[in-house]
């Protein structure tokens, strides 16, 4: 481990020196620029006068020139980004550090060091963390990422709670902190008497807002209750609206001497304008973006661009009208995501996700880094009393606020917040860079601005460091289980898990959430109107199909890349219809050692209860559904079997209906019937027609799963042919491509031809390592009663050469 560490340190030093040189260089260049401009002016004067060219000295052709000012700005920007990113890489080499100290702390610490170095060299840091740069360039990226990857289902299930905490909580905090600070200011001894009520309230509104960036950075590795997580996440994002209103209201009022009650009403009205306006802008831009992607199938390369441009436009448009831009961009991202991901190609989808993650990470890294740098280099005014009381009140009011609000909102919730959760909510209220940037935008007319700056920096650093570092041990301490594992028998452990899975399944079955009614309504509206307009290919799918598409397609591509345990060697899941083994084993004696090992094995390997949200967006990774994938693959056989049974029945009825309508004589007219058949087979066929079209471009190695599914379709068609009476059979025979593939769905039928050929080969080693589970599956098919006619037909079935 020493090697990479040392080289990392060297890299860091090199970069530090480079950046210093560059800023040093900047200094010199500025001087030379001024001399250059000075030298230009006499030249200008000379131009007016007649001038003889031969007076010039003859300059030789320069072989090596350097023009720093020209590239200065982008060069320095790149260096800073690299420096911050190297720091980030460095942290993850030391795995142990990141467990205990959240990344944001480390970044701020490095920023502090760099800032100290720069300060001692009397350098000015680049003016990156000006409010404009922060609000226009850095914040939208982060918020876009938060909005895009927001788990929508738990969010909408908890939307009332989230808004409650965001709006009422922030109000409570601001007013509480402001009033208390004002009370403190009355005491002469602290020396802050000149801060009036408005200024206090203004400051309080700035520091009361919980910052989504910092919160998520802190909560990353912590295993809190999902409800708590989504509430605090949502609160951080949505309290922006309140902050904007309060800030503009109080800064407006701070200039005035008196505080009218009409201002309060105007403030409330403004709040609604801000909030609703943000939502509206977001929705509009989101729909426009979704609509645009409907037509981009011929311009795939620029598809990701639309996502970014429209979100950014939403943000800027909202900023134009001084309404909540954060709300706008979040709404835009949420609205857009669902439709865009259906319209764009798989590659564009991946690109969008990765680019968003990358930009957000850069932006966040830079923000924390510069927070550290600027801390050292700004002017401070330190007042012990004010700052300490600020900290105290911030913690106090947040704690009380959460307590009171939870008491009020708990009766309305299906899953209530326990005191543990409430503690997590309160303690996780970390302030971050938004507060910092806001405080810089305070008008200079406020005479104690430096004090406010210092106070907000203090509170940010306190919450990020102290709360950020300590929250993990405290949460773990609170969550400690009292049960002694050794006292639990293996029985209890297994049966407990079984019961948990059962309850989880039944809850899902019941659609346990109270918003189900609205969700259902929205889904109907969605299917009838929105999907038709916004999606290019808007056939309604059953949700299990979309689940399959997402998981299976990804699996089919990834299966060859990722080591997924040893799925191929895994014994297949024994499902209901499989034969039972007969075995009897003699009594074994188990040592405690063995028992303990068993407990270990079970606790590490039993599937955990499905969390109601997919694994949280760890800042560094995409949402992880590998476990779900694994379960789904293993259950695939049984699911497919039962689906096939259904498709069999439906196929029969459909076929009967259809054959009375059509009596096609020509091959070309078989197309619509094939399509009809395809379209009505649940799950399987949708996948076939939809995905295979795309899939052909991708993998040269044939994915295992679609092939198997094709068997289903093939068999069903066959089986239908068999089970019907002879007139239908004739039609089928006629319809059936004996020598030639059907004209139009050429792609499909040539695909279809391969499985039968491959079926013959399954006894021989297939080209791809087919897991035994799959092979067993096909053998089962042959053994079943329904298998025989299938088998009979299949051997005749392969038309032309197997592989085209």
């Amino acid at each position: 481990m020493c090697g990479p560490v040392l080289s990392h340190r060297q890299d860091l030093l090199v970069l530090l020196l480079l950046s210093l040189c560059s800023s040093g260089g900047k200094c010199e260049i500025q001087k030379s620029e001024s001399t250059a401009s000075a030298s230009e002016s006499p030249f200008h004067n000379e131009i007016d006068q007649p001038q003889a060219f031969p007076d010039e000295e003859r300059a030789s052709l320069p072989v090596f020139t350097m023009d720093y000012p020209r590239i200065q700005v982008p060069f320095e920007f790149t260096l800073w980004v690299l420096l911050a990113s190297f720091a980030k890489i460095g942290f993850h080499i030391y795995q142990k550090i990141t467990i205990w100290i959240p990344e944001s702390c480390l970044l701020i610490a490095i920023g502090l060091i760099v800032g100290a170095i720069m300060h001692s060299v009397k350098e000015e840091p680049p003016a990156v963390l000006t409010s404009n740069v922060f609000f226009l360039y850095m914040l939208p990226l982060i918020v876009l990422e938060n909005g895009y990857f927001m788990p929508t289902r738990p969010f909408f299930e908890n939307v009332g709670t989230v808004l409650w905490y965001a709006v009422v909580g922030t109000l409570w905090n601001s007013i509480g902190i402001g009033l208390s600070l004002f009370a403190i200011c009355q005491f002469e001894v602290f020396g802050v008497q000149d801060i009036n009520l408005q200024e206090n309230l203004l400051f309080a509104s700035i520091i009361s807002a919980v910052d989504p960036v910092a919160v998520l950075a802190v909560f990353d590795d912590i295993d809190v209750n999902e409800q708590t997580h989504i509430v605090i996440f949502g609160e951080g994002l949505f309290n922006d609206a309140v902050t904007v209103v309060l800030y503009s209201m109080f800064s407006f009022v701070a200039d005035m001497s008196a505080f009218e009650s009409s201002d309060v009403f105007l403030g409330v009205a403004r709040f609604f304008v801000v909030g609703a306006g943000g939502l509206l802008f977001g929705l509009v831009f989101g729909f426009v973006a979704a609509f645009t992607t409907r037509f981009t199938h011929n311009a795939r390369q620029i598809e990701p661009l639309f996502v970014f441009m429209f979100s950014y436009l939403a943000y800027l448009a909202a900023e134009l009208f001084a309404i909540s831009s954060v709300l706008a961009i979040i709404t835009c991202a949420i609205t857009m995501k669902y439709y865009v991901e259906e319209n764009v190609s798989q590659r564009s989808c991946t690109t969008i996700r990765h680019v968003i993650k990358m930009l957000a990470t850069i932006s966040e890294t830079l923000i924390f880094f510069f927070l550290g740098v600027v801390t050292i280099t700004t002017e401070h005014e330190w007042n012990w009393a004010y700052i300490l009381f600020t900290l105290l009140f911030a913690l106090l009011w947040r704690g009380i606020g959460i307590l009171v609000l939870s008491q009020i909102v708990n009766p309305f919730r299906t899953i209530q917040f326990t005191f543990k959760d409430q503690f997590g909510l309160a303690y996780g209220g970390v302030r971050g860079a938004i507060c910092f940037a806001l405080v810089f935008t305070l008008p200079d007319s406020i005479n104690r601005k430096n004090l406010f700056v210092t106070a907000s920096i203090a509170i940010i650093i306190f919450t990020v460091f102290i709360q950020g570092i300590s929250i993990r041990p405290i949460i773990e301490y609170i969550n400690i289980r009292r049960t002694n594992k050794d006292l639990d028998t293996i029985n209890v452990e297994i049966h407990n898990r079984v019961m948990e899975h059962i309850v989880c399944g039944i809850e899902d079955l019941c659609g346990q959430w109270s918003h189900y009614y609205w969700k259902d309504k929205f889904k109907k509206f969605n299917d009838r109107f929105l999907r038709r307009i916004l999606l290019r290919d808007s056939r309604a799918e059953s949700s299990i199909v979309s689940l399959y598409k997402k998981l299976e397609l990804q699996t089919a591509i990834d299966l060859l890349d990722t080591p997924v345990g040893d799925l191929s060697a895994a014994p297949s899941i024994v499902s209901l219809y499989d034969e039972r083994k007969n075995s009897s084993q003699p009594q074994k004696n188990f040592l405690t050692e063995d028992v303990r090992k068993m407990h270990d094995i079970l606790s590490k390997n039993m599937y955990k209860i499905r969390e109601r949200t997919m694994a949280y967006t760890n800042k560094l990774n995409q949402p992880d559904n590998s476990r779900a994938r694994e379960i789904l693959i293993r259950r695939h056989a049984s699911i497919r079997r039962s689906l096939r049974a259904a498709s069999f029945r439906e196929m029969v009825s459909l076929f009967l209906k259809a054959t009375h309508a059509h009596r096609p004589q020509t091959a070309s007219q078989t197309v619509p019937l094939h399509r009809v058949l395809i379209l009505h087979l649940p799950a399987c066929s949708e996948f076939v027609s939809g995905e295979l079209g795309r899939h052909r471009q991708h993998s040269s190695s044939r994915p295992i799963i679609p092939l198997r599914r094709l068997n289903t379709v093939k068999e069903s068609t066959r089986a239908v042919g068999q089970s019907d009476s002879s007139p239908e059979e004739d039609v089928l025979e006629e319809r059936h491509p004996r020598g030639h593939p059907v004209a139009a769905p050429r792609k499909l039928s040539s695909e279809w031809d391969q499985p039968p050929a491959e079926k013959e080969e399954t006894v021989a080693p297939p080209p791809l390592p087919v897991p035994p589970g799959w092979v067993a599956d096909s053998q089962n098919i042959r053994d079943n009663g329904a298998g025989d006619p299938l088998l009979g037909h299949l051997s005749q079935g392969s038309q032309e050469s197997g592989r085209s």
Partner: protein
Amino acid sequence: MGSRASTLLREEEIEEIKKETGFSHSQITRLYSRFTSLDKGENGTLSREDFQRIPELAINPLGDRIINAFFPEGEDQVNFRGFMRTLAHFRPIEDSEKNKNTSTSEPLNSRTNKLLFAFRLYDLDRDDKISRDELLQVLRMMVGVNISDEQLGSIADRTIQEADTNGDSSISFNEFIKVLEKVDVEQKMSIRFLH
């Protein structure tokens, strides 16, 4: 609404279900609307495929078994009564019910019946015994791919050894109850149904 008229829930039915299962009126209507939304074929009964369409059940390792628990022996369709009867097992036990004298037949959500539900998940052939194979099957479903068969086999053996008191190498229902006597089954196997 035309095709559904025949399947709308009548008051008498609600009353009967209420008496049998103990759900409240609003819970029954709510679950009925869930039932109808699952019933894509709109024929008043649910088949296995209707259950399979719920995506969360697809990724539940015991999904098949849970679905199977809804269907009475040998049948492929379940009507609303059957649906409710199965769900009734998960109703929380209210305090007022705890002390009731069990002179009448036991309510569906009693501790014994909850345990019976779990027991039946293992015991497919309904012989009132969990054999080693049945245990292995369930274990295999619940455990990731990294566990070998031998390891699982010894876990299963140990499980039976711990529970089996009469030496028949399988777990009977009474032994099952005994093993879980310290576990708070009433709370674990209950769902707070919304009103």
